[in-house]
């Protein structure tokens, strides 16, 4: 039946769950576009035949047109849902994506991510607040953290420098270490 390849794309993305992004499936997308091209050209032939007086072609045109719309919907949903995953990574990760994630992005997605970053940064500058901070309500000014990796020197907001060695523990200002915790460098100890 028509639309099989397009369905494959949707299923592949659905299987990947959240938090991970499979590589951009260039050739499957290509095959969907090819099927659409063929459906469209066949419909054009049938339409001109019908205009020329030949009967009995309308049903085929409608069937192919429904398949065209189906392919379109699957393809757009594939691109749109990937885009949402990439967008969420900005909040999850920060403005620099790790390489193994970047390799799964196609060049248009990469340029989308760059534009999204710039637009978000511009918005945050205009309101004067870093929205990627403060993911949890503040409990107290300082929190206990343990270092999971050898990170080296780290300068806190109020200017003093801390040496973050593996397994070293510190009492750090909450705002300073939120990013480090999210990137798995520090661990918050209750």
């Amino acid at each position: 039946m028509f639309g099989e390849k397009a369905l494959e794309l949707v299923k592949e993305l659905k299987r990947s769950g959240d938090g991970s992004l499979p590589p951009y499936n260039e050739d499957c997308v290509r095959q969907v576009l090819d099927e659409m091209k063929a459906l469209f050209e066949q419909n054009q032939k049938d339409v001109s035949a019908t205009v020329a007086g030949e009967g009995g072609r309308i049903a085929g045109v409608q069937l192919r047109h429904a398949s065209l719309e189906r392919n379109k919907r699957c393809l757009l949903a594939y691109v749109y849902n990937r885009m949402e995953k990439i967008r969420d990574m900005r909040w999850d990760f920060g403005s620099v994506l790790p390489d193994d994630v970047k390799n799964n992005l196609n060049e248009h997605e990469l340029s989308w991510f760059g534009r999204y970053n710039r637009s978000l940064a511009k918005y945050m500058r205009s309101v004067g607040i870093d929205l990627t901070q403060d993911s949890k309500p503040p409990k107290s000014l300082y929190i206990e953290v343990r270092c999971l990796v050898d990170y080296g020197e780290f300068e806190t907001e109020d200017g003093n420098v801390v040496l973050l060695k593996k397994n070293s523990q510190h009492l750090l200002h909450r705002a300073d270490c939120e990013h480090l915790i999210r990137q798995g460098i520090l661990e918050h100890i209750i």
Partner: protein
Amino acid sequence: MDPSEVDFLSEKQHVKILPNFKEGRIFLISGDLGPFEPGLTAEVPLWMAVNLKQRKKCRIIPPDWMNIGQLEERKDEEKEREYFTEMPSKSYLELASLLLKSARDDIPHADEVQTLIKDIWEIRMAKLRKSINIMMQEKETHARLDNLTHLEINSIRPFLTSALDRMHILRCNVVENPSTGTDY
């Protein structure tokens, strides 16, 4: 809403403290406080009370309902009454657990107080499930829950709103396909 945000909201309510430091009026953005005299009670928001306690700058006076006598009375009343009784505050559980965690030595008979509060919570949650059961059975499409507290609402919200949202779709289907009374 994340329970930590429910906590965050409950930390706005005021509690009484016994400071051991001297300080004039403090003009917070959320309102003026103090002055503070050692041995003289003062009212501050819960988030400040807990912070001062962590820095050993005060003792916290538990709210007057947080004692064994009153809590036992509330527990019995909650057990008897079919509907939810009114709680002393819409964030009684957050207040109690925060004080029990960071100012336990300021609460007489802390263990009994904790178990009583836990019991009250369990009775109310069981009541909440029962009333939802009835709500679904009667196919009611809205409900009044005056005495439910923030954390109780928050704990039932994910299930109830998502379940009712889907029920609404099915209900619209029925409404849009009324049987014309012909027998099946």
